[in-house]
């Protein structure tokens, strides 16, 4: 559908949320939690954080929870009964305040989970989630969305994108049918905004590296020592993967209580040694440097080649969170520096 541009006055945004609460909608949004900004369920617009760069964790867990049941079972000496998931029980959710980078991350997740065979659990969660994004008025030194074809006002993945203007009112872009149905719940709150330009309200996010031909530059660097050199300080904690909006690697485990149990999938990471360790003791990705290479190659070479989408949206969380100050944009800069390869 064609994006429609409307004006949503700041007082009307609060009324809109109130209307959605009245309709018993499950609404989640960024809330100040001490020093952190975290998504949580809200019951009033007052709870929403204002004036923040980006939530500490991405919105990934709404569609790909860090621990997720795949099915349950009951077990006794003689028999095992499997109880399949009832996907009808997955609730509809509205996420407000998702940043354009995180919304764009849904495209990468969709490519991984949608690939044959399609993951119906993920797909149902995504179908039942509506994203009301906030364009970015401010950025920090870690943000690099503009280096990978994203941007502070990018609409991809959002159903509605709100850009705050100087007056505090919003330019509302209605991007998808899901976005339209939000408007339809309170059309009187939206005014026509055709012709308005959000550009001047957006953060200035400078380019941190040149992404032209990045896929081939990554391939060319594969056998060089740039990954080993950069990852020499990596402690292999995998924090980068957990905060990443596109990292989708997982483990499958069972957990039980008495005769009942469930098979679950849990977030995992290529940065961890155990990830690829064979029972024999052989490990195809033995060193941290090789594991860092896998992380970058997967995001910037294998995914574009196989799934036609990059596995990075430039949110910068991995670098913000890294306990040893590794910086993905810096590492790519070294790789793409022609003098090195």
């Amino acid at each position, binding site marked *: 559908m064609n994006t429609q541009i409307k004006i949503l006055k700041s007082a009307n945004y609060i009324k809109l949320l109130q209307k959605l609460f009245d309709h018993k909608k499950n609404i989640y949004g960024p809330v100040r939690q001490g020093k952190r900004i975290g998504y949580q369920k809200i019951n009033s617009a007052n709870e929403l954080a204002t004036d923040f760069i980006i939530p500490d964790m991405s919105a990934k867990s709404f569609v790909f929870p860090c621990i997720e049941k*795949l*099915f349950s*079972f009951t*077990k006794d000496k003689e*028999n*095992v009964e*499997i109880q*399949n*998931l009832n*996907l*009808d029980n997955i609730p509809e959710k509205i996420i407000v305040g998702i940043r354009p980078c995180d919304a764009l991350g849904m495209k990468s997740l969709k490519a*991984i*989970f949608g*690939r044959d*065979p*399609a*993951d*119906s*659990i993920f*797909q*149902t969660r995504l179908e039942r989630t509506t994203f009301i994004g906030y364009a970015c008025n401010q950025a920090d030194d870690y943000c690099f969305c503009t280096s990978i074809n994203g941007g502070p006002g990018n609409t991809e993945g959002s159903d509605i994108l709100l850009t705050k203007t100087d007056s505090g009112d919003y330019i509302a872009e209605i991007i998808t049918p899901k976005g339209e149905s939000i408007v339809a719940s309170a059309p009187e709150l939206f005014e026509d905004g055709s012709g308005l330009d959000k550009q001047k309200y957006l953060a200035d996010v400078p380019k941190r590296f040149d992404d032209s031909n990045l896929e081939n530059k990554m391939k060319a660097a*594969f*056998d060089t020592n740039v990954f080993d050199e950069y990852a020499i300080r990596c402690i292999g904690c995998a924090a980068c993967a957990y905060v990443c909006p596109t990292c*989708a*690697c*997982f*483990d*499958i*485990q*069972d957990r*039980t209580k008495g005769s009942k*149990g469930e*098979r679950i*999938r849990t977030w*995992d990471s*290529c940065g961890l040694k155990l*990830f*690829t*360790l*064979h*029972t*024999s003791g*052989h490990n*195809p*990705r033995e060193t941290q440097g*090789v594991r860092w290479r*896998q992380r970058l*190659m*997967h995001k910037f*070479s*294998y995914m574009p*080649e*196989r799934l036609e989408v990059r596995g990075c949206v430039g949110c910068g969380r991995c670098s913000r969170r890294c306990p040893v100050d590794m910086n993905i944009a810096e590492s790519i800069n070294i790789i793409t520096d022609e003098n090195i390869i």
Partner: protein
Amino acid sequence: MEQNIYLPYRMKIVKITEEAPFVRTFRLEFINPEEGEKFTFKTGQFAEYSVFGEGESTFCIASPHTRKGYVECTFRQAGRVTTALSNLEEGDLIGFRGPYGNIFPIDQWKDKNLVFIAGGIALPPMRSVIWSCLDNRGNYKEITVFYGAKTANDLVYKHELKEWEERPDIKLYTTVDPGGETPDWKGEVGFVPAIVDKFAPTAENTIAIVCGPPVMIKNTFPVLKKLGFADENIYTTLENRMKCGFGKCGRCNVGKTYVCKDGPVFTAAQLAELPNEY
């Protein structure tokens, strides 16, 4: 709603065979006969086997696709899941998810000689292919099997080896590592690559299928090359760690190649294109 791709079939262990120390074969039948009737696989594919409450483990399907109504797997007790599997008895239930991965293209091998070269616990994936070919014996010319293990006791499928030894339409060479022989051992003594070199199977109109520990594969390829085998005519199967089996969990890839989706069966020519990450 589409099906839950993580849901396993429930299978009953109808027969357990002790193959070697810590190595067992399970014959599995579908609890639900309708599922069993719909189920098909091709030789070379693998599956996820699970003990409910302990987790899943990845092995090949060790039985041939020519035998319907059951599947077999052979595994060595090593980690949490394989230990739990080892503690099970005939009649117990396990989970089975699959089949996954590509296949050995045995239909393209018609009217060719086949040379199978296996080491240790790597005979199971090859046993599926060998029986699939033996069950359509007329399709192939000479079939030769080289199989080695550390000791005579470590050889798996001992009575099938005996059967192959007695059959006139298959040639079997067994070998054990030096020191691994028993007093009554009648086979060869020496590492697999050396035994292949010694008996020098012809490369003419021949497909070689090699499966074993990395060091055996690494040392067997040069022997085959010396004998004149082209990389396109040498097949192997890779066994990287896997969880999902269908290209999502992210751990089995070698470069951009996913062992679970693009493999596990590769030719030596395809392997040569992969980075050394397996």
